């Protein structure tokens, strides 16, 4: 049986009469010239390839190793940065395309590869985004994931947000949002506050501000900053996790980039109980208090950035069954809110600061059309 080019593969034009073969599901790619493309077409048709050899360019890169908000496409964008061409025989080209899922012998076996890994070393499954990141960080780069999570978002010394979409969208939005929403009379609890960066932004506008997080190292870092907010290590998400916080004590509860882990855990294992968390959030809110949730967008987060720099498009390969997005799909998230007595009183999608256009045009134009974060304001029903 001859191999086939799976329907998951798209061919994108590249400079210099070259073609980029890209599997949108595995996000693997390889560039070839016209002769290489003909070789693959010949193989898929069950014939003998006309060309004996052709140049190939390795165009793959794990872009998100630089951060969660880096280009998630996994293609080296600038063709001038591609490694030198490798002259490949038709057989070698076919072999490399098989490794990259650009050519498939057994469609059933290929389909069966998609799914969560049993553990980090499980190479039989492609795994979800968290697992792929774990393989990249722990097996290939050998970096501590906890330190990586902080470094990819913050500048050294935690003094500021790195100049990527975190700053251009999330930080830029919240800098304007908190002073409008909070007053010096507001008491706020930042649940899952991490190293306390946004907690201090809240404290600048609010009265009493408390940041809580299960990670003791993050809380120690937050305290070292010496800001206005108070911090406590609390086992957020566990039964009784927020018990030390009195009932009906907060005007606002804020959570950012945390709820996604209640739907898809970062490491294989049980998913924490979001109902338990939401009941706790509701308990500590005053009557009429507001729960503010800022999460990666349920559709567009980590979607590929394709097309021209200033006219991007994306290919959605998932919505309900997530491999890359690892966020809850819309009804699942909203149902979790409603099930626990919250009503949506406001919703926003967050757009980048126009100044970011000069910093990273591709990221700017993508995020300016396909939102990367969403905000919900929720009140007790």
């Amino acid at each position, binding site marked *: 049986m001859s191999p086939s080019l799976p329907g998951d593969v798209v061919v994108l034009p590249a400079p210099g009469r070259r073609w980029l073969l890209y599997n949108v599901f595995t996000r693997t790619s390889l560039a070839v010239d016209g002769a290489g493309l003909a070789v693959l077409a010949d193989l898929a048709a069950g014939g003998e390839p006309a060309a004996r050899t052709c140049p190939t360019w390795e165009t793959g890169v794990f872009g998100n190793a630089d951060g969660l908000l880096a280009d998630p496409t996994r293609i080296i964008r600038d063709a001038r940065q591609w490694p030198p061409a490798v002259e490949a025989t038709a057989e070698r080209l076919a072999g490399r395309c098989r490794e990259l899922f650009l050519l498939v012998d057994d469609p059933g076996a290929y389909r069966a590869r998609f799914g969560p890994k*049993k*553990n*980090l*070393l*499980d*190479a039989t499954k492609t795994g979800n985004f968290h697992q792929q990141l*774990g*393989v990249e960080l*722990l*097996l*290939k780069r*050998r970096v501590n994931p906890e330190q990586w999570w902080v470094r990819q978002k913050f500048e050294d010394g935690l003094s500021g947000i790195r100049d990527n979409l975190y700053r251009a969208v999330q930080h830029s939005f919240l800098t304007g949002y908190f002073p409008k929403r909070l007053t010096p009379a507001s008491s706020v609890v930042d649940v899952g506050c991490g190293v306390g960066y946004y907690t201090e932004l809240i404290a600048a506008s609010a009265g009493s501000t408390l940041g809580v997080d299960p990670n003791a190292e993050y809380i120690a870092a937050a305290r070292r900053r010496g800001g206005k907010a108070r911090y406590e290590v609390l086992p957020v998400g566990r039964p009784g996790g927020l018990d030390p916080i009195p009932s009906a004590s907060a005007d606002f509860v804020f959570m950012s980039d945390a709820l996604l882990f209640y739907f898809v855990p970062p*490491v*294989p*294992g049980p998913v924490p109980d979001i109902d338990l968390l939401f009941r706790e959030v509701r308990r500590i809110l005053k009557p009429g208090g507001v729960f503010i949730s800022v999460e990666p967008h349920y559709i567009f987060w980590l979607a590929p950035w394709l097309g021209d720099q200033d006219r991007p498009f994306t290919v959605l390969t998932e919505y309900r069954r997530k491999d890359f997005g690892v966020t809850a799909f819309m009804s699942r998230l909203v149902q979790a809110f409603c099930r626990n007595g919250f009503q949506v009183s406001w919703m926003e999608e967050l757009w980048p600061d126009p100044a970011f256009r000069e910093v990273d045009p591709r990221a700017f134009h993508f995020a300016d059309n396909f939102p990367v974060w969403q905000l919900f304001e929720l009140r007790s029903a």
Partner: protein
Amino acid sequence: MISEEAVRKKILSYLEAERPLPCAAEEEKLSFEFLDSNFVDSIKIVELVTRLEEDFGVRFEPEDMQSVDFRTVKGMTGIILRLASR
């Protein structure tokens, strides 16, 4: 020259630091699939990798770690001996 016995013992000592492998005979332990049976989690396996690399002065490639051999004490021993003899 590192002996097969020394490598095997070292791996077992790390794996069994908290609890013994669920095997009756010593031979069984060598072919017990400690990863697929979830005897160790991903975090533990990374610790194991780091320690063994330090102990034997080797560096595992991602391909080594994702190979079938890496899932048993016997296979892992073979990989370490191969890398150490380079």
